[in-house]
């Protein structure tokens, strides 16, 4: 995340699928929509430009090969208490944003909660942790900041968190 300006986008970039009320469960109000986003900054009520914490569908050895990204990924800025997604009422209609992997690589379009295998923290100044459960629960893994003008360092998630990533927090 570089700029916390007042830029709040109305529509999400990347993969946006209107899936209708069906995915929201039986209690969904009359008007509801579900979108998929690959970066939590694309959620209208989250104010940031783009995420620093990259969560890849593949593990390190597959995700980046010969300097090219082969794996789809999701990027997050800041605290995400549930990698499932987020929803909010805007007026009388509830909108849900589900977090998915994007960029066209392996795993593209899949939901990312409990589905990631490796992580890189490209933040200049923010360390992160990834947690086993939503709400920052269970065991966790630390990802040190990248530092100014440095290299992002991709690391495999520990076994307990591989395909069990559920939340992330500044650390």
């Amino acid at each position, binding site marked *: 995340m570089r700029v916390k300006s007042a830029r709040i986008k109305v529509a999400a970039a990347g993969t946006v699928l209107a899936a209708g009320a069906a995915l929201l469960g039986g209690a969904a109000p009359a008007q509801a929509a579900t979108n998929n986003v*690959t970066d939590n900054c694309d959620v209208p*009520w989250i104010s940031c430009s783009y995420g620093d914490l990259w969560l890849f569908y593949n593990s390190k050895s597959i995700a980046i090969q010969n300097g090219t*990204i082969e794996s789809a990924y999701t990027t997050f800025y800041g605290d995400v208490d549930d990698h499932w997604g*987020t*929803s909010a009422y805007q007026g009388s209609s509830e909108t849900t944003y589900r977090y998915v992997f994007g960029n066209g690589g392996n795993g593209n379009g899949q939901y990312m909660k409990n589905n990631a295998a490796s992580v890189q923290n490209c933040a200049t100044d923010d360390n992160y942790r990834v947690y086993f459960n939503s709400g920052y*629960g269970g065991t966790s893994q630390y990802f*040190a900041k990248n530092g*100014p003008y440095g290299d992002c360092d991709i690391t495999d998630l520990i*076994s307990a968190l591989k395909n069990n990533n559920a939340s992330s927090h500044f*650390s």
Partner: protein
Amino acid sequence: MKHIKRTATSVALAASALLVSACSSGTSPHTTQNAADGRPIVNKENWPKKIPTSGLTKGLTLPLEAYMASYEDQVAVEQAASDLQQSCMKDYGIDLTLPLAGANPPPSDNDANIERRYGITDRAEAEKYGYELPPALQEHTTQTMRDLSGVEVEVLTGHTKPEPPENPKDVKAGEPLAAPGQGTKPARAEYNGQKLKTGGCIGWSKEQLGLRETDPTFVAQLAGDSLMQSMKDDKVIRAIAAWSSCMGGKGHSGLADPYKAMDQGVTSDGNPTPESIALAVDDIDCKTQTDLVKIWSGVESAIEDKQIADNQSQLTGIREQHGKEVAAARKQMAALTQ
């Protein structure tokens, strides 16, 4: 009830707070106070306790935590490295103020995440926040750093200035990795008549502190394995079943384990609801009633003791190296204040 989700009011408020705290751009941001709203940049009151002082995990540690870096130690090493980098840059005639370490603490002290390892455990917090974190842990203090010129980056990092980071959303599979730091070249040999250091001032600071960047994943891996193994233990399985039954008795049926309660109780906006608070309080009362945390952590302690015995030399090496780094960092910081 699958997720307790509600409106985004507090997110908007939190976002406003972020904007307020972030608006020092263009000026020197590293005063000890946040110029915009008077909050200190580093507030140790928000740092996690090394050992919990309240709730069901009060006084509780797991054996592997002895081999993990505490937040205080992590901050000390980061800050000492930044101080050295600033002083190194100054030797080249470059005035640089790096962000202060410790501005955005985590909810727990290390990877074991003991306060929430078995789900939530602090009733007083649950009564106020449900499954959410206290507001101070939902904020972010932003410290802007001025953009450095090409030569300044070379002095700092030992390599040329990378292209501005590409928006990750614009990167496509099969394209060259366009993450920060890619495609740089080695720095020039000298600046202002002085030879550049190997790895620049950042490399030099690590050398001064003896930072080896040993694999931090090893201990986290063991701690994760320990949790996974514990969930297959008969005593833990029985205790979780008793907790689940207790929850059913309080009107929360179908919750297989405390993590499912967390899934259900977490709200989308960081604001508790009456329902999430009721669930959270019942969750902790059932943990108390079934002695879940004591049983579970007891099983984990035995598992971790064995892990430590099986990996003694590697773990001892990690702890000794870590101890040296923290001691060097504290010495450096003490020297700075004299």
